[in-house]
């Protein structure tokens, strides 16, 4: 029952979700191998080797793996897949992009975004924006799985796995990177933050969003998030979106400001430990999931809250 976890990383460090994916893998077996595919990615490989439960780190270091293109990644994973019964990656935009290619090339199903492991063949996954949970059993010899990282704890440190180089198949040469505009932020990563302050259409515009929410987030050391409406209206970039088709978050504290609570939004945050909602509409659906609801004008209440903390 060998298990392969595909690490998500930026060549230097591992992305937080890699640890959660490993801990999902360790529900299926005692140890797992990790593949680190990238360019000049030895530091990420060393970080992977130090995680508890890792048997071996396989490193594919090549210029054409630098940008994480799905075509090259999938062909690499398929080239080393023999002998593995499970192949797992985080259900981030990284994992969602290439894992279905791996599954199709192996002629097996992908089991998307599992939230629990029932047994060796059976998994739970949310469907319909998390309004139902399906328990599915795989009939395939190799299980290609993406993992909802908020549903599994982060694997700890303490390993000292061997690092082994693997050759990567040639560049497929069909894709080139034109530009990357990554958001730079001093704040914690949205998907892994302990506290998230999230704003919706009620903020009115991007300037208000920053003026009202940034001081609160600063005070709490929180990540900033948003509803789709706030992203569509250009208040904040796309990577702020929380929800069914955005990011899934499950922080200790989620503060929803001027967000109505559409099911697609709830899908991304209703596993948060404590939810606070601030909204002027006492009937807004967000109050149905909020532990603490405060009805009123956010432009008065949020600055008061920031001052009181």
């Amino acid at each position, binding site marked *: 029952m060998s298990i392969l976890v595909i690490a998500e990383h930026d060549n230097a460090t591992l992305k937080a979700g890699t640890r959660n994916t490993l801990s999902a893998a360790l529900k299926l077996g005692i140890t797992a191998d990790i593949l680190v595919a990238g360019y000049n990615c030895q530091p990420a490989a060393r970080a992977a080797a130090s995680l508890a439960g890792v048997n071996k780190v396989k490193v594919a270091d090549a210029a054409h793996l630098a940008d994480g293109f799905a075509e090259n990644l999938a062909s690499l994973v398929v080239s080393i897949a023999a002998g593995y019964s499970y192949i797992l990656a985080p259900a981030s935009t990284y994992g969602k992009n290439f894992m*279905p290619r791996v599954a*199709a090339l192996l002629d097996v199903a*992908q089991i998307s975004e599992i939230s629990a492991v029932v047994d060796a063949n059976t998994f739970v996954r949310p469907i*319909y924006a998390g309004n139902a*949970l399906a328990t599915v059993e795989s009939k395939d010899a190799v299980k290609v799985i993406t993992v909802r990282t908020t549903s599994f704890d982060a694997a700890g440190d303490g390993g000292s796995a061997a690092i082994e180089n693997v050759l990567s198949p040639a560049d497929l040469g069909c894709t080139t990177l034109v530009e990357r505009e990554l958001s730079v932020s001093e704040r914690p990563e949205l998907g892994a933050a302990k506290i998230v302050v999230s704003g919706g259409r009620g903020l009115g515009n991007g300037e208000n969003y920053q003026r009202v929410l940034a001081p609160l987030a600063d005070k709490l050391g929180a990540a900033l998030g948003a509803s789709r409406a706030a992203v569509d209206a250009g208040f904040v970039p796309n*990577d702020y979106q929380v929800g069914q088709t955005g990011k899934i978050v499950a922080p200790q504290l989620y503060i929803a400001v001027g967000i109505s609570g559409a099911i697609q939004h709830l899908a991304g945050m209703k596993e948060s430990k404590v939810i606070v909602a601030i909204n002027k509409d006492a009937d807004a659906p967000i109050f149905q999931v909020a532990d603490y609801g405060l009805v009123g004008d956010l432009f008065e209440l949020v600055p008061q809250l920031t001052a*009181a903390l």
Partner: protein
Amino acid sequence: MSMKILVPIKRVVDYNVKIRVKADNSAVELDNVKMSMNPFDEIAVEEAVRLKEAGVAVEVVVVTCGIAAAQDILRSALALGADRAILVEVDVAQSETLQPLAVAKLLKALVGQEQPGLVICGKQAIDDDANQTGQMLAALQGWPQATFASKVVIADGKATVTREVDGGLETLAVTLPAVISTDLRLNEPRYATLPNIMKAKKKPLNILTAASLGVDVAPRLITRSVNEPPKRTAGIRVGDVAQLVDKLKNEPKII
């Protein structure tokens, strides 16, 4: 360029419907529930029609794999400006277990027949939330892909696509033919006008069967049960900010 665009679309429970799990926990209730085109697929149809209007494509063909009733979304797509529609018909039992790998294989067979220069699909069907089919089709064809698109430019045999990724935005150039999957901000789909709805009734709609395409649509995943998630109950209303701060400070390990 005289490119044809193939747009796969899926009929799903309308995004406004609050779904219910069947009493026997076998599935989500679909009887007497409003069904619509998957929202991401509307965006895909819109993008394809715009590329045709811009002279980049000559024909937009929409396809769905589903039951006979799924002709309704094909007609909707024709009313939005698609030229021709194909239903790959499966029976009700098959449609309940039709999974992305099988759909990707059906689409591959159609790509073989239609020879499109580009496939534009949705990034995710909002019923199964799988987010797989486009990538699988691309892999089976040996084509490049550009998923989660928020901007598409076609020129010189290439698609230059801006993608919504976790860290922000990424722009790729992929050689054609390719598969592109749509994200929410690619465009805002138009509404069908009454004259266009009337015209759509006369546009060609072909019906094929999965068997005639030689594809095995048997499921690889067996659904053992479908359950409601644990309900989150509403907490309390606090009267003012001071009370909220007090509550939060008394919650363990939060602030």
